[in-house]
């Protein structure tokens, strides 16, 4: 078993492996043992190949033995959301329509992690095609929140969040379309960063809504999150929406980020719809920031209430087109039914209810005669939301507020009510619509011990600054950020 100081810090673990104090194989064995012991209860992983993981770790140890100690993630295991393509490893998006599919290529972020010496630990659970906020839409069964196994871990990157919180993996990748990294991070008590749109290549990320999807790092603390962000960020010519310009990893680690910082506090984020304990925890962060030299700037973001309807028109429209390729012709399972139309229908019946619902909504929104009223209108509102943020960032450096309206909710509570589930994204959907970076860090717990997250949103390209501020806040909050010894509430 790894000592506590290494099991709660990927940065320390990488240093220990690099210096030869710990073997990559020991690290792999540590996390594999924890998964073997506890993932039956948590169900964070969909695909795990311990033999391959150990072989990959051994290969890193062999490299180190030859004197090659390069790579920021040397020997560190990383859990991967199962909507990122991994060559030779099943990639299913938690959907029956991709059962048995093994991609012929690695996503850009997977290439980067491998090049940095990281070990791909396994593929984590998600809501089918990342459509959901609880992992209950996974066709392989929901994941559980390690802080309370009767509750959801959030979603859609719930498997990755649960894996990190439960100490199954020191680092994980998620993807965030309307909050899918930040919301489960908040509900599981970890750090989750949604980069500026285009900061991380989407090549190999199975598309849900292309204009909003971003791959994001998830970790126990901000330092580790920055470590992974530094590895995956940067231009990729295979993604036409990839931004030029590198991530400022040095800036992200610079001290003194709170001095003179102007923190925007929108009135809309403190409504009655937000749980009282969540509000109190966020207010405490505001007070700590002020004590450390920051200034609060009251803001109005009146378009916040339009973010959810706008978001759901844009994502369903794009999804209806993005998911057309799953037709049983070239890969994945095929269900024959006499003729071509029958085969399409039978095969695509494999989609779960939420996926079908969104495909139908999106098909409708793009239909001739409805396009102007729905899709086009949504694009106009989206534009306005971006402008509203741009104006806000003339007055402040970043915007602070709750990540989610409530802590983790019980399994089954919202699964029959899509609209209630959609409202989980109320604070996380605006940033993606505007292409902005945002992250969530733990900021306390409810009386019943459930984690609460606080969200920072910044102007486009301000990823490094957000991480630097998050690190300073994390220090001021002084919470215990260790992974759980074992899952609770079984």
């Amino acid at each position, binding site marked *: 078993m790894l000592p506590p100081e290494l099991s709660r810090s990927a940065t320390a673990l990488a240093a220990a492996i690099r210096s030869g104090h710990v073997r990559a194989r020991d690290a792999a064995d540590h996390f594999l043992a924890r998964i073997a012991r506890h993932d039956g209860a948590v169900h964070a992983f969909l695909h795990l190949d311990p033999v391959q993981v150990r072989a990959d770790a051994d290969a890193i140890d062999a490299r180190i033995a030859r004197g090659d100690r390069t790579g920021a993630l040397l020997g560190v295991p990383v859990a991967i959301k199962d909507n990122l393509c991994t060559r030779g490893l099943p990639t299913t998006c938690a959907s029956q329509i991709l059962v048995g599919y093994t991609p*012929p290529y690695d996503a850009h972020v997977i290439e980067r992690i491998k090049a940095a010496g990281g070990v791909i630990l396994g593929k984590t659970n998600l809501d089918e095609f990342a459509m959901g906020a609880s992992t209950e839409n996974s066709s392989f069964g929901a994941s559980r929140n390690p802080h309370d196994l009767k509750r959801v871990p959030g979603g859609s990157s719930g498997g990755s969040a649960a894996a990190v919180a439960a100490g199954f993996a020191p680092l994980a990748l998620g993807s965030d379309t309307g909050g899918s990294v930040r919301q489960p991070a908040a509900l599981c008590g970890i750090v989750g960063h949604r980069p500026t749109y285009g900061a991380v290549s989407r090549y190999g990320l*199975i*598309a849900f809504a292309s204009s909003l999807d971003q791959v994001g790092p998830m970790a126990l603390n901000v330092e580790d999150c920055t470590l992974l962000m530094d590895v995956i960020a940067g231009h990729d010519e295979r993604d036409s929406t990839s931004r030029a310009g590198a991530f400022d990893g040095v800036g992200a680690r610079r001290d003194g980020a709170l001095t003179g910082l102007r923190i925007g506090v929108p009135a809309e984020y403190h409504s009655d719809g937000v749980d009282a304990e969540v509000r109190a925890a966020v207010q405490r962060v505001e007070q700590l920031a002020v004590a450390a030299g920051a200034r609060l700037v009251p803001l109005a973001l009146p378009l916040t209430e339009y973010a959810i309807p706008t978001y759901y028109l844009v994502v369903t429209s794009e999804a209806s*087109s993005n998911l057309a*390729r799953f037709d049983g012709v070239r890969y994945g399972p095929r269900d024959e039914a006499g003729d071509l139309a029958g085969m*399409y229908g039978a095969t695509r019946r494999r989609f779960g209810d939420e996926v079908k619902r969104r495909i139908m909504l999106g098909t409708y929104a*793009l239909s001739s005669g409805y396009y102007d009223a729905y899709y086009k209108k949504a694009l106009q509102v989206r534009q306005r939301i971006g402008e509203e943020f741009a104006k806000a960032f003339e007055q402040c450096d970043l915007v602070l507020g709750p990540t989610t309206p409530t802590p983790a909710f019980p399994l089954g509570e919202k699964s029959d009510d899509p609209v209630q589930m959609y409202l989980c994204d109320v604070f996380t959907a605006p940033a993606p619509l505007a292409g902005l970076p945002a992250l969530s860090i733990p900021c306390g717990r409810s009386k019943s011990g459930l984690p609460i997250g606080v969200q920072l949103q910044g102007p486009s390209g301000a990823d490094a600054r957000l991480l630097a501020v998050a690190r300073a806040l994390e220090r001021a909050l002084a919470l215990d950020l260790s992974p759980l010894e074992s899952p609770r509430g079984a």
Partner: protein
Amino acid sequence: MELEPVIGLEVHCQLATRSKLFCRCVADFGGTPNSRICPVCTAQPGALPVLNEQALALALNAGLALHCTIRDQIKFDRKNYYYPDLPKGYQISQFDEPLCEWGELEFELEKGGTKVAKIRRIHMEEDAGKALHPDGANVSLVDLNRAGVPLVEIVGMPDLCSPAEASAYLQTLRRTLRFAGVSECDMEKGSLRCDANISVRPKGQEKLGTKVEVKNINSFKNVERALMFEIARQSEMVARGEPIVQETRSFRDTEGSTIAMRKKEDAHDYRYFPDPDLPLFDVGRNRIEQARAALPEGFVAKRRRYQASWGLTDYDTRVLTEEPATALFFESVVAAGLSPKSAANWIQGEVLAFLGETKGSTKSDISELKITATELHALVQMEERGELSHQAAKKVLRRMLETGVDAQNSAVALDLLQIRDSGALAATIDEVISTETKVVADYRGGKETALNALLGRAMRATKGKGDPNLIRELLLQKLGKPGS
């Protein structure tokens, strides 16, 4: 009631790029099925498109060659529909903001004179794959080699009034695009495909009749056949008082007829929307102006130049500008030093004839020639220096074209170099004089033409290689003036 047809063509051309529109797979015709594919063009989950800027450059050339207005920022849209040969379930195309708009094409009319037809728009899009339905088998097969190949669709206005005009328009469009380097425009290989929109209306009426779209016209000849069939079909319907239904019909080669494919009500709702994977792309005024400056010279300009600067006949210039490769070869032969007139004669007379015979068709592909412009020039110089007779030079060229061996070596191999050594010729001449006593006597008796007979005998004796001027000179030396 006299009816007139109204015709507009929609032409798809494959851009002559090395690779596909959004990935780096080879874009050539054919290949073992599914050998030219990758994650992007097979629509693997997570794969993303990246624009091939060479395709943009060629589409730009199409727009410039057809005098279009060019957008300096382009947008790609998704056209959504399901078919097994369409890997993503949508085709990346351009919907409401095509790269080029409002151009025109001038073409010659059969009865003389020219006509200008308007081009409505030119947009870029990717091709689909190919679905095959093997006879007797209860399966379909999909070949994705063609999926993602770059195309331009050139939509003409309904400005054409007869099948002959449509044919002339299409031929001229093809030649224009070939000279601009945009496309091979080979209908057999599918790099040029033509759909026709056609309606009929009473002569003099402004309002257009109900249009029918004819697809699957697979050759130039069939453009006219399909249109003639449709005009007859629609005219008969009008005569019978039946309404014409707006529909898409398919041309059937064997019958020369068209059959209904789908009615307007069955038309897809393609749910076009901007492709979020491809942000607006800046073409830039600079790129457009550079392309305009570098646009290859068109065949009309070449014809004008060949006639004005080089004094070639209208007929010559047409032959030489039939194909871009022919014009290019002709111009490089001139650049090598041959006079334009002589170059034109050699290329028309010998080179094109050779290609026509060996390929068994008039469709000569001069780019496959085994000789260079410099080698053709070298041959002509040998004739000019008297080393080859004109007849021998033709034979030598034929061998050069067949083998690729240069002029000097071909001439030696054929033993056709002229004998210009008076010592070697003197013996032959002595022998002719001693054997042809009667002809010699005629000559000496004053019959001047007898000298030509002797010259002919001497040429035959040298198997045609003797330099006729030299032989004549030597005969005169030996025999003196006639009658002397």
